[in-house]
């Protein structure tokens, strides 16, 4: 009989219909949460920043994501300044 050991899947490898089940398998203790953030940080870092011929793209993607995030947060105040009425 073959013993099947569940391997930890990364977020990018999970299919969308399996997402709730994947979230339940995650570790929600403080230490586990911190480890998850660290994993994410180092995954991004090793792929885009910590390379032999890294360019400014790695940091620029973070800045672009920051701009988008701040836009979403301040969308409510910006809605008053729309140039067109139903846009």
């Amino acid at each position: 009989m073959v013993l099947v050991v569940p391997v930890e899947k990364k977020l990018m490898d999970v299919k969308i219909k399996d997402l709730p089940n994947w979230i339940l398998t995650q570790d929600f203790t403080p230490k586990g949460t911190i480890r998850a953030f660290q994993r994410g940080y180092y995954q991004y870092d090793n792929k885009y920043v910590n390379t032999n011929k890294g360019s400014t793209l790695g940091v620029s993607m973070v800045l672009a994501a920051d701009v988008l995030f701040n836009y979403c947060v301040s969308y409510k105040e910006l809605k008053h300044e729309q140039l067109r009425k139903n846009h």
Partner: protein
Amino acid sequence: MNENLFAPFMTPVMLGIPITTLIIILPSILFPTPNRLVNNRTISIQQWLTKLTSKQLMNVHNPKGQTWSLMLTSLFLFIASTNLLGMLPHSFTPTTQLSMNVGMAIPLWAGTVATGLRNKTKMSLAHLLPQGTPTFLIPMLVIIETISLFIQPMALAVRLTANITAGHLLMHLIGETTLVLTSISPFTALITFIILTLLTILEFAVALIQAYVFTLLVSLYLHDNT
């Protein structure tokens, strides 16, 4: 109109939770820690810049004052990176909040004064009186120097807040003017756009300069007191 002007300076709230702490922590993830002797390009450039600024800041001090080098270098990096990140569109700059700048200025200034009073009491008290004053002016001058000493932290904080806030506000106003003028008179809009470009370049410079000035003044107070 009034509410729109100062809306970018209100603390950002997402789903009812203030996320100011996250925004203050953000610049730190842009400075990875060096793990090796020879690192990748990002870290190498940051190391070179940090070494350049630290040497510039700290070579005026004696070894006692140079124990503050970690504090002052990290202060400079924090203020510079926070100000520069505030130049991105829609972003929130924590240094526009007076509360944060006073929170940075008062402990640092108090630290320098306490170091001076503790280690060289006579010298730091003697700084209260400039050399060569006429005798009858001494009481008044001591009072004036004491007041100027106590104003130092507030000046540090208010200088940083006012510079960054005024710059952001100017850019908002001129940008709105340019946008409104494009439908009325495109030539004037072009002129205001050029003004906006120049102002943006100035703001990038101001972001860095303010960081430098803040740190320089703290180091100056340190120099007097070590």
